[in-house]
């Protein structure tokens, strides 16, 4: 390979698309590093504070697509204060100043201001794709800027963001000349949209493949949109409320039947379940069905719908489907790979509808199952052991028992054996979330068997430091560890600080680690940022090293302490 000119190597590298592989390629030798960095177009940065925009730009001048993640995962559950960090503006500012021809920006858990969106929209002529997941800080004014200024926009995908909806006419800001849209997802917006503008936009977007509407889009508009875009592959329905005898409903039936390419269906944010039969014609081709925002759809109606979906590979559903409904899934969806069951009544008094029974049924009926997120009322060791036997292919296994320290209700034992069976059987397991009553024993199993584990989430578990030590010692591929409310202290934290450099991050909240322990980590490992998040500002008044730390977040970084931390965050 040394005798090939650079262009040949570059051409070969073009075929290497995975980030991991490209990173490996760049480590082979200096010349490969050089060729790789000039030809690299897509960069993924899992923690925006691990590197600076300037260094990114210096290394990858050909950058076209950037993915950034900001806040730690537990920020999703309100464990991280809103202004902790993760601001995208400095990145956009730096990129705008450079010669980088940015075309795609994908952000997760970042703070995005209208100002940044505006700057983004004006700085990159060829900007094509904006994907925002679980972000906040912007309003529909920022979206208006994107719509107005990005002449070649192909994708605007907003997933589960908290957007301040000014009910402006952002949709009307797409100029008449914009005909390049392939994907438009505004399901998370809560306000009204200009329906006429939406219809016109869809009419002039012949390449539109993915359209996800918000709740404010009524059925008659949906019908018109479908008539104009029968080529859709992915549809998110906003409101599905109508009079079954109306002309609109009949027209809708016809419109849906024309959409023979739809493979993915979601939404039903508002639903009158009487007339789901209009949807049946497209069910047979669906590979992804997301009804997790449709509590109005349950019981018989829901089951009848699912019975039509024989090719489903991914199903996101609410627990009102019940164990019985999961039985229907098990009988019908033989191709199922991913199942997510969300709670419809998270604080309810135990009337929620799924238990270990439903999970066992699905595991028996769907042998291809490899990814699970399951919120349930209870779980038993026996069920988990059965599931482990039925489905050895799990890559992601996330179980959330709503009562966080509930034991096996049949035997009153902890769930150590059940989870132990999962990690032992599923040799490819990469992500695991635990719940229920758990002792140190489950962590012994995890350390022993979960060789491929990359991400582990622990809450209200374990008896002692041993639990954490088993994991840190055993899981060689561990990248992200997040722990809350466990009795892990300084002994576990300090046992092997070098390990943290091999990981992206560690989160510990409401555990037993002390300020002194955290300081010790920071001292020994200058390549880590050790952040103490102290909203009550107790630390200010009491700097005793023996003080227990409420929230600690540490992560490896090449650029030292960040300068944008709020007052209540101390970086040791």
């Amino acid at each position, binding site marked *: 390979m040394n005798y090939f000119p650079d262009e040949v190597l570059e051409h070969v590298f073009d075929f290497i698309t995975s980030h991991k592989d490209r990173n490996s390629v760049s480590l082979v030798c200096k010349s490969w590093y050089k060729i790789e960095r000039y030809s690299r177009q897509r960069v993924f940065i899992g923690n925006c504070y691990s590197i600076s925009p300037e260094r990114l730009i210096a290394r990858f001048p050909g950058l076209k697509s950037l993915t950034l993640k900001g806040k730690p995962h537990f920020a999703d559950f309100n464990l991280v204060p809103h202004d902790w960090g993760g601001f995208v503006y400095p990145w956009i500012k730096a990129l705008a100043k450079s010669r980088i021809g940015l075309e795609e920006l994908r952000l997760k858990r970042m703070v995005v201001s209208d100002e940044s969106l505006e700057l983004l929209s004006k700085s990159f002529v060829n900007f094509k794709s904006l994907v925002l997941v679980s972000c906040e800080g912007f309003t529909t004014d920022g979206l208006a800027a994107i719509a107005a200024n990005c002449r070649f926009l192909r994708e605007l995908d907003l997933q589960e963001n908290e957007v301040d909806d000014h009910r402006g006419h952002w949709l009307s800001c797409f100029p008449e000349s914009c005909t390049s849209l392939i994907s438009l997802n505004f399901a998370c917006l809560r306000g009204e949209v200009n329906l006429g503008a939406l219809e016109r936009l869809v009419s002039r977007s012949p390449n539109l493949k993915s359209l996800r509407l918000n709740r404010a889009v009524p059925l008659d508009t949906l019908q018109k949109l479908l008539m104009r875009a029968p080529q859709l592959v992915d549809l998110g329905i906003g409101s599905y409320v109508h009079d079954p005898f109306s002309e609109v409903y009949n027209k809708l039936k016809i419109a849906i039947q024309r959409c023979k390419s739809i493979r993915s269906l979601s939404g039903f944010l*508002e639903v009158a379940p009487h007339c789901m039969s209009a949807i049946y014609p497209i069910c047979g081709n669906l590979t992804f069905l997301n009804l997790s925002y449709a509590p109005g759809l349950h*019981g018989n*109606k829901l089951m009848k719908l699912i019975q039509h979906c024989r090719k489903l590979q991914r199903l996101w559903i609410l627990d*009102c489907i019940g164990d019985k409904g999961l039985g229907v899934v098990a009988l019908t969806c033989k191709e199922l790979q991913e199942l997510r069951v969300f709670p419809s009544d998270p604080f*309810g008094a135990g*009337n929620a509808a799924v238990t270990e029974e439903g999970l066992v049924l699905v595991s028996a009926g769907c042998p291809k199952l490899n990814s699970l997120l399951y919120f349930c009322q209870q779980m038993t060791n*026996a069920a988990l052991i059965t599931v482990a036997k039925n489905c050895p292919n799990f890559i992601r296994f996330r179980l959330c028992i709503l009562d966080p320290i509930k034991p096996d209700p049949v035997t009153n034992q902890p769930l150590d054996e059940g989870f132990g069976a999962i990690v032992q059987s599923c040799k490819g397991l990469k992500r695991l979330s635990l719940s229920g009553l758990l002792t140190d024993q489950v962590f012994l199993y995890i350390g022993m068997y979960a060789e491929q584990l990359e991400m582990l989430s622990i809450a209200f578990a374990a008896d002692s430091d041993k639990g954490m030590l088993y994991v840190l010692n055993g899981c060689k591929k561990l990248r992200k560890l997040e722990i809350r409310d466990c*009795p892990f202290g300084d002994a576990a934290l300090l046992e092997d600080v070098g390990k943290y450099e091999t990981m992206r991050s560690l989160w510990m909240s409401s555990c037993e680690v002390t300020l002194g322990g955290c300081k010790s980590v920071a001292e020994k490992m200058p390549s880590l940022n050790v952040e103490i998040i102290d909203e009550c500002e107790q630390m200010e008044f009491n700097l005793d090293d023996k003080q227990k730390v409420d929230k600690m977040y540490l992560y490896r970084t090449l650029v030292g302490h960040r300068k944008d931390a709020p007052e209540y965050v101390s970086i040791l």
Partner: protein
Amino acid sequence: ILTAKDFPSVVSHRTKNGGPSVSVSGTKRAAESVSHEGGSPTGVSGSSQVVGWPPIRAYRMNSLVNQAKSQRADEGDSGIGEKDKPKDGLKKKLNYNGNKISSTTTVNEKGHLGFVKVNMDGIPIGRKVDLNAHSCYQSLAQALEDMFLRSTNSVGAEKEQLTKASKLLDGSSEFVLTYEDKEGDWMLVGDVPWRMFVSSVRRLRIMRTSEANGLGIHKKSMANHSCFSFSVSESCYSFVAAPRFHDSNERQRSKPI
């Protein structure tokens, strides 16, 4: 740290292995500790909440709350719905205690335009009511109460029913008003806007609340009538299940939300 003390339903276990005893530090935000109104079987319930638990993305949590609120607003005239209980705002499905409901009567129950058949549990002879004569649920309920409960001519009616069956719509009586819709499913009257109800109702039934399997029925009693049989024996960890596909004749149980 939240400990077993905070979850009174669980017997203290955490210190039995001799591990370090865990306590909530006085300087921590103890306000976040869980409080209960008499331990519930699930431990964490009702208004008590642990910060960040269950681990549901904030956006999803907010959506659930918003959706429940607007559904409660939609059914403002039905008289059902309590504050802070999103499940009451969501549409309820009904199921029967294993009784098979014959669906052979697929003949257009409406017959005479606007008229639908009404049956009441315990009364062998049914009546017909003209839906076009009413413009809202209250009016219909009043008419039905007059029809079935005030009349001294009803065959088989018991005196007790006169007092028990009043107020059909607000859930306070021993009876509840249900209907069969166009798709053959039995639903609770009052969940959808009136006009939508009128366009989809096939027939009505005034049912004993105990048969309605609404909220609060314990899972065990429902399992007795379950059409699925499921057993897992711990010793051999084998899975035996006989799930049956339900056609519209059989009513299965769905647990209330």
